[in-house]
């Protein structure tokens, strides 16, 4: 550490870190533009100028850029000196010459880094009276708006998009005062992380298009800490609400999970909350008639009735919280409860838990994988199944560059210096996947293989690590690289649907442990609460549950937030629901309409994640609390409330839950879930000064007016009995728990850059610690388990089906979000050219799977192994049969585009 002095304040900073970062870590106000905590310094914008003095005697000092100046013991600086302040004001004045005066109509207004810096620098009067440059904007697709006139040429966009996220289609064009940031031509921004431009760009050039279409100022958005429901990474998000509508998703900083960035599924996938096909009413129907709306109490009576007897099966869901699932489990009894995975997937998720608990490797946090200096990816198309991880993996290969820079004594925050010196040197990432992935471009070695061969290859690598097998082979080379790495990482998961692949990953990790290294092993699950639902358990497999209904061993079923047609053989689901409709009741509680709700007898509308609170467990086993952002309109209610009411009404002593915290408490009595109690502060937590934490900002407008068209009396503010948050602007943010705040804002810092004010140090944990509790702490001192390859036979006619996941379309809820619908693709069947030829089919033709009664367009890809067919998971293909399946060319197939064109 080095002691430095800034305007008379003496503090400790890390030796060699740059002064800007050091000042911000002290929560001092110092303007900047081109620096970004994740992107480092390039010294381009000249906005962070300060005076550096040579010694105690030096009174004049010299102007330096804080972001380019390493701190050293005894260094003395001034931010406030007139020379520095005046220079920064001039810089802003230059930048503002061409900037339009459009703040009132700019979406960035009120959370604009440029506005903040302009005010902070004191440039208040325009002296430039020349003509401003104007630009033609581009159509960048359904996610991102473009308004180039607002650009201040800081390069943060291309440094994020191109350098950090590896995007190829956004660039800086031109030179000097004629810079343009965009694509070579109009078109959809290709990167799956393009949405981060909205937050990375300090001005309103790149904006959130869906948000612009239904816009509110940041200060008018109500919010509460939330978790992205898009996948199992569990990124922390800040949903914004106004007038009972979810308006947008912003990143919520988490120092171990998502840092400063989200993927576009997460950012743009949440509009399903407002979707038209939300289930909003209770319903009942007789026979094949239409659903009739019923009162909530009537629906509750049905639920209560089911709570009393034992003749019922309860099916939960990995997209519902632990508490919702637990409430259902409690209601129907553990032996009648099924977590809601397909029977195959349940086995895979249990395998994750087993492997994590076995101590085969250390379970890294999602951000920690950025530090890995050698990575083996086995079978998982991470960019599509756990997207945010792919961005972290992309950073991991930069470790070689960082190592070279360290050797050359270049500070690691010197972004241009590090990149220039390393000339694109990458650490090794080995990728064995079914088809090409978005990480192939940075991989040292890529192979495209079917799952069973990936598993075999993986086991061979494990053997090579243990010293068995040829060193010249690819396996030998990969093994050697992993062994010599300081921080090796193995990534695998349930995505390709083959447990043997994950066992192979565990075997490699285990072998590395035996060989004395400390490998990290991360296994991805597919849904937001896959691991939570798995840990909760339940006595029934899904197929078994459905068979019970089909053969009359149980007459009633309660399905919670689950479309069974995506989880089991559709003909089995049909038979089960039909029998249950005949013999009893099919009560489906969901937030959307699905094929399952269409086959129900009773419907109950439940809250979406933003309308309730609960706990999700992410892929590292981190239990995280999400809070209610806004109240749903009755009768939509949290599932745990519906179920709890029913239990109470049925006189169940084990379900006397008044409040959410009691549900948590009861649930935490289950083995392995004890830590649930500590996940997040309960309803009695209070922020600074003993006050509730306000969901609304202190500048929220129109409090008395916003409902005046309905009623001139100001509405009574609802009281939140379940969380420490209030539904108004009164209260205080934060307190002891850093994550307990609904928005980031600090005086002078209206943009999201203000987050540094709430971090221990720039880029570190939030004050009060990173939120969430990991349920699997690394097993210490346990001997590394061994995983042998199990033998499978794979002979026979037809194709072996392999699930393929897509960031846009495979996740059930985000696939209903209108911008994602616009961005996403249709279902596909991927075949090798030879196989396509054998079926007499060409690219674009329909391929039919009789067993699934579904067809989709063919895409020919020679990376797909012969005898295998990749099916894109989504609305068309959910559950996939194991074993070989016959496919044929479908002469009647029409692609969705053709169908639209016809209409």
């Amino acid at each position, binding site marked *: 550490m080095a002691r430095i002095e800034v305007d008379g304040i003496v503090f400790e900073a890390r030796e060699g870190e740059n002064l800007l970062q050091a000042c911000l870590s002290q929560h001092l106000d110092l303007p900047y533009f081109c620096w970004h905590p994740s992107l480092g310094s390039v010294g381009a914008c000249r906005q962070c100028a300060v005076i550096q003095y040579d010694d105690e005697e030096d009174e004049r000092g010299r102007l330096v850029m804080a972001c380019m100046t390493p701190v050293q013991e005894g260094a003395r600086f001034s931010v406030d000196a007139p020379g520095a302040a005046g220079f920064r004001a001039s810089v802003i004045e230059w930048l503002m010459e061409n900037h339009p005066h459009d703040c009132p109509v700019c979406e960035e207004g009120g959370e604009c880094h440029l506005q903040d810096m302009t005010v902070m620098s004191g440039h208040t009067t325009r002296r430039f009276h020349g003509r401003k440059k104007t630009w033609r904007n581009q159509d960048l697709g359904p996610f991102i708006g473009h308004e180039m006139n607002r650009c201040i040429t800081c390069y943060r966009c291309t440094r994020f998009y191109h350098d950090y996220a590896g995007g190829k289609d956004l*660039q800086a064009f031109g030179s000097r005062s004629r810079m343009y940031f965009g694509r*070579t031509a109009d078109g959809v921004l290709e990167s799956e992380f393009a949405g981060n431009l909205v937050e990375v760009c300090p001005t309103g050039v790149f904006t959130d298009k869906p948000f612009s279409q239904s816009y509110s100022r940041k200060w008018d958005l109500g919010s509460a800490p939330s978790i992205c429901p898009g996948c199992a990474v569990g990124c922390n998000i800040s949903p914004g609400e106004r007038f009972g509508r979810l308006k947008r998703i912003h990143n919520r900083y988490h120092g171990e999970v998502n840092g400063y960035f989200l993927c576009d599924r997460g950012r743009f996938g949440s509009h399903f909350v407002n979707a038209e096909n939300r289930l909003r009413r209770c319903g009942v129907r007789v026979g094949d008639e239409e659903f009739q709306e019923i009162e909530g109490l009537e629906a509750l009576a049905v639920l209560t009735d089911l709570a009393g007897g034992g003749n019922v099966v309860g099916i939960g869901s990995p997209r519902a919280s632990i508490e919702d699932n637990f409430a259902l489990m409690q209601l129907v009894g553990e032996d009648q409860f099924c977590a809601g995975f397909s029977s195959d997937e349940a086995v895979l998720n249990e395998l994750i838990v087993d492997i994590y608990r076995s101590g085969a490797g250390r379970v890294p946090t999602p951000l920690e994988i950025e530090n890995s200096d050698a990575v083996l990816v086995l079978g998982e198309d991470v960019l599509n199944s756990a997207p945010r991880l792919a961005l972290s993996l992309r950073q991991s290969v930069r470790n070689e560059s960082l190592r070279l820079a360290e050797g050359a004594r270049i500070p690691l925050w010197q972004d241009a210096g590090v990149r220039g010196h390393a000339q694109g040197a990458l650490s090794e990432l080995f990728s064995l996947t079914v088809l090409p992935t978005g990480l192939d471009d940075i991989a040292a070695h890529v192979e495209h293989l079917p799952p069973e061969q990936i598993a075999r290859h993986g086991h061979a690598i494990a053997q090579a690590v243990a010293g068995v097998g040829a060193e010249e082979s690819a396996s030998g080379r990969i093994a050697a690289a992993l062994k010599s790495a300081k921080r090796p990482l193995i990534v695998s998961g349930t995505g390709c649907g083959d447990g043997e692949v994950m066992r192979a990953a565990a075997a490699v990790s285990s072998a590395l442990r035996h060989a004395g290294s400390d490998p990290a092993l991360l296994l991805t699950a597919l849904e937001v609460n896959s691991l939570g639902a798995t840990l909760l358990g339940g006595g029934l497999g899904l197929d078994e549950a459905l068979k019970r209904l089909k053969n009359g061993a149980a007459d009633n079923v309660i399905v919670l937030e689950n479309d069974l047609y995506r989880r089991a053989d559709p003909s089995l689901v049909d038979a089960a629901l039909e029998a249950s409709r005949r013999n009893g009741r099919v009560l489906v509680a969901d937030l959307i309409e699905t094929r399952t709700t269409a086959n129900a007898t009773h419907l109950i509308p439940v809250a979406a994640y933003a309308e309730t609170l609960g706990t999700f467990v992410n892929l590292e086993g981190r239990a995280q609390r999400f809070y209610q952002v806004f109240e749903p309109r009755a009768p939509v209610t949290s599932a745990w409330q519906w179920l709890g009411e029913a239990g109470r009404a049925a006189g169940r002593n084990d379900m006397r839950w008044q409040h959410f915290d009691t549900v948590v408490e009861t649930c935490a009595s289950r083995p392995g879930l004890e830590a649930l109690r500590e996940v997040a502060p309960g309803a009695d937590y209070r922020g600074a000064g003993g006050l509730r934490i306000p969901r609304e900002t202190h500048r929220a407008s129109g409090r008395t007016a916003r409902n005046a068209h309905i009623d001139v009396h100001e509405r009574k503010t609802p009281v939140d009995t379940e969380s420490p948050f209030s539904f108004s602007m009164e209260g205080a943010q934060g307190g002891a728990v850093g994550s307990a705040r609904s928005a980031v804002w600090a005086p002078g810092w209206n943009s999201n850059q203000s987050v540094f004010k709430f971090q221990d140090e720039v880029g570190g944990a939030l004050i009060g610690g990173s939120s969430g509790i990991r349920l699997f702490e690394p097993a210490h001192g346990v001997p590394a388990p061994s995983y042998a390859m199990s033998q499978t036979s794979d002979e026979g006619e037809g194709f072996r089906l392999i699930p393929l996941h897509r960031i846009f379309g495979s996740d059930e809820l985000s696939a209903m979000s209108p911008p994602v619908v616009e961005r996403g693709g249709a279902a596909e069947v991927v075949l090798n050219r030879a196989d396509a030829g054998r079926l007499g089919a060409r690219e674009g033709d329909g391929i039919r799977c009789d067993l699934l009664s579904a067809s989709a367009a063919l895409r020919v890809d020679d990376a797909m192994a012969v005898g295998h067919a990749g099916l894109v998971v989504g609305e068309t293909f959910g559950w996939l049969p194991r074993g070989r399946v016959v496919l044929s060319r479908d002469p009647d197939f029409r692609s969705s585009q053709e169908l639209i064109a016809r209409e």
Partner: protein
Amino acid sequence: MSEPAFIDVLSQAEIDAIEIEVAHLPDRPSAAIDALLIVQKHRGWVSDESLAAIARLLGMSAADLDSIATFYNLIYRKPVGRHVVMVCDSVSCYVMGGESLMMRIRRHLGIEPGETTEDGRYTLLPCVCLGACDRAPVIMVDDQLAGPLAESDVEDVLGAFE
């Protein structure tokens, strides 16, 4: 990436010339500027189609290549006349009368910077630095420098380029 084979857009002569440059360099994208100049030599300018074709040939994205192409004054992304007149508008030339020189040239050619005369003879472009401050105010026509240039010399100097 299912565009048609853009490489068809380039002639064999262009491809051969580019490959010679590539052979001297550590990686293909390093030949970007040379490749752009080669195509420009053959065609007078670099169209969007040519740009995409060069990018494919060099294994880089069109955006990355265009970023380079648009950075340089001497690479033309729009068609230009038979002769390109570059007038330096940087500090030294400005101090030495560059502004009125530009005015004189505009009047003489009857076009604004960025335009081409109707007969396709001249394109007029401002240029940030020609690297010849000692000859300020300086202009460059095609690859010939002229300066220090008095306003009265403009007609003669430009007239020499048919």
